[in-house]
């Protein structure tokens, strides 16, 4: 039971870290890019765009279709 709680806390902490990073990135003169900025950078080549959009489609299938 303890390991289950640790696992859940781990997920919560990592997801919280993503929100904190986005918050920090939106501060003035921050060196950390926002989620949109680095995703936009990754999607500059067509292959990156295709991969990210396929990942989005997979997320929808994984969580809402199954």
């Amino acid at each position, binding site marked *: 039971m303890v390991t289950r709680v640790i696992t859940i806390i781990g997920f919560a902490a990592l997801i919280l870290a993503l929100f904190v990073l986005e918050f920090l990135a939106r501060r003035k003169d921050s060196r950390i890019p926002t989620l949109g900025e680095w995703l936009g950078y990754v999607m500059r080549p067509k292959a990156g765009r295709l991969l990210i959009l396929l990942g989005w489609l997979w997320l*929808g299938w994984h969580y*809402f279709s199954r």
Partner: protein
Amino acid sequence: MAADDVPLWPDLPPQEPSRRWRLGRLALPPRRPSRRPVNPALRKAVAGAVLIAYSWFAAGAVPFSRNALLIVLLPGAALAVIACLRPPKRIPPPDRLDLAGFSYWAVAVGALFEWEASAFKDGAPRWHPALTTLIDPALGSRPLKAAGILIWLFAGWALVRR
């Protein structure tokens, strides 16, 4: 009949390349300005209402059914068509990325994937559940699932604009 006597064609105005194949890809003709401009706020409200209705309808699909597959494939196909034929005005990406700044994201996202993968590898037992296992009960509620689908749709639109 001397060549000088041949009447010349009048100079035609320079024609711009067909928009349908400009930039080497098929595109729809340019939008003509509407006689009655639609209020942008009204357009957004209508689009929002349609998306909320779609999310609610989609949340009612039985998992693993054909409808459940279609409710995901349909927005994917719609976004692909929009992205190819009539792409929206894009938010320009940055020219360069601060590697040190990006590394924070890489570590956090990588750790999340690793945490999920380790649970998945073990078959997501009760003592080490996967994120999917934890979220699934919440998605059993139709309003929560509809909210999730709505967020997913907005995320897809945000990606197309990038």
